[in-house]
């Protein structure tokens, strides 16, 4: 992945998040507060504006800028979590062109940042449940497999009871609904494929 491809990835995320905003909001209405779609739409629109004309020398520059913008524009739980993930990825990718292996390491660093910040365990019904298999699949089989793994894992959150985030307040009533954050994670990996 080079700088231009990194920009394309982010642009693709922005487009898919915009297109799927209503779906994400609907999922978040069922077990949260109904703002996940609006949050990410607002965030990636700001990222788009921030990257426009921004001089990036490395892949990391693009991702770090993305993360910092998400942190300062989104709010909520997903803002700091996704923002920290992109910032962590950015920090590891210090050259203008990076290998797939380096990208895999970066994605792993992103996941680590989310887990460190949010403290969620696998199975807690959060974005972690999609990131985890996606990163593993990326490393073994590349971006297509990662996207598919994330999508499957997002769907599989439906059967889980939430232990983190707003959905945890619903207790057993959170079962039967797909996690919005895991769903947006699948969008991020699909945009990479």
């Amino acid at each position, binding site marked *: 992945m080079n700088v231009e491809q990194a920009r394309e990835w982010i642009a693709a995320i922005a487009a898919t998040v915009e297109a799927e905003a209503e779906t994400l*909001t609907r999922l978040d*209405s*069922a*077990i*949260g*507060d*109904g*703002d996940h779609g*609006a*949050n990410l739409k*607002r965030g990636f629109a700001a990222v788009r504006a921030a990257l426009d004309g921004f001089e990036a020398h490395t892949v990391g520059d693009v991702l770090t800028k993305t993360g910092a913008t998400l*942190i*300062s*524009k*989104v*709010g*909520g*739980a*997903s*803002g*700091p*979590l996704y923002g920290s993930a992109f910032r962590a990825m950015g920090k590891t990718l210090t050259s203008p062109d990076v290998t797939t292996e380096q990208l895999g390491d970066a994605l792993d660093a992103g996941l680590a940042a989310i887990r460190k*910040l*949010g403290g969620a*365990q696998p199975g807690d019904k959060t974005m972690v449940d999609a990131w985890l298999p996606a990163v593993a699949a990326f490393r073994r089989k590349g971006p297509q497999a990662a996207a598919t793994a994330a999508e499957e894992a997002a769907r599989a959150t439906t059967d889980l009871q939430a*232990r*983190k*985030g*707003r959905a*945890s*307040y*619903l*207790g057993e*009533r959170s079962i039967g609904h797909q996690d919005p954050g895991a769903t947006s994670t699948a969008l991020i990996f699909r945009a990479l494929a």
Partner: protein
Amino acid sequence: MKKFINDPGDVVAQALAGLAAAHPELRVDPDNQLVIRGDAPVRGKTGIVSGGGSGHEPLHGGFVGPGMLDAACAGEVFTSPVPDAILAATRAADGGAGVLHIVKNYTGDVLNFEMAAELAGDEGIAVETVLVDDDVAVQDSTWTAGRRGTGATLIVEKVAGALATEGASLKDVAAIGRLVNERSGSFAVALTAATTPAAGRPGFDLPDDEMEVGVGIHGEPGRRRAKVTRAHDVAALMVDAILTAKPGGGDAIVLVNGLGGTPLIELYVLFGEVSRLLGERDVTIARSLVGNYVTSLDMAGAALTVCHADEEILRLWDAPVRTPGLRWGV
């Protein structure tokens, strides 16, 4: 959706503009969506900052002023504010004695305030945090996000604000805030769902004879659904849940709080029941508030908050306060 708004995307900004027009004694920072005491920072005083998603008015912007908050951050509706805004509020509130962050326990609020606290620390501003988690409808556990912060936030802000006004140190102000939180429990019931301007329709459908029991203040469904009962039974449910999770007797500060769409006449009916029930459990209502203070947009519903208060807490509760939402003694 029928609301007095111009554009769903601009509600928070325009409500802040309205607040600024109504309260020239406050300063509004439109870029960061902050409400700030007109004379902030107060030299030598421990600063107090709170904030969170909007839609809970008068919380938090309505509690800015002498005796309570120095600054409040208004996030988008039901979305916690961003670290930059919280940092700006912290700077505005810092009179050299450090700043207390009063944070409702939601993942988003916690993370954004944490980041802001780090940034403030980098700038040399001492920050302490009080996490409010009074909603006993949610089971407490280290494995989960824990309990939500709801009505007790008002009491924490009032009491901490009073102590800070007396010149107490950041450490002491934080300690009293934590004490108030620890001694407080809340429980809410909703009769209708809230409609966020962005979603445009109610967050959930609720049949005409059912209520959501154990709701929060973000329009989310509650712990369970039940048939609507008489005010007496609703009050009993609330009192039981709170005194089970937070046992205690003697003096209490009691808040019967409307969620936004419930009129005062019903809140008073509920308060009457609550007062009888608390009396039977040897809890004395030493101070009380009845009204819409910590709301969830237009949700019809009510919450009870009980804070087992000692003399010091009562003294600080009684101290003068002058804000749009609470004012007495001045």
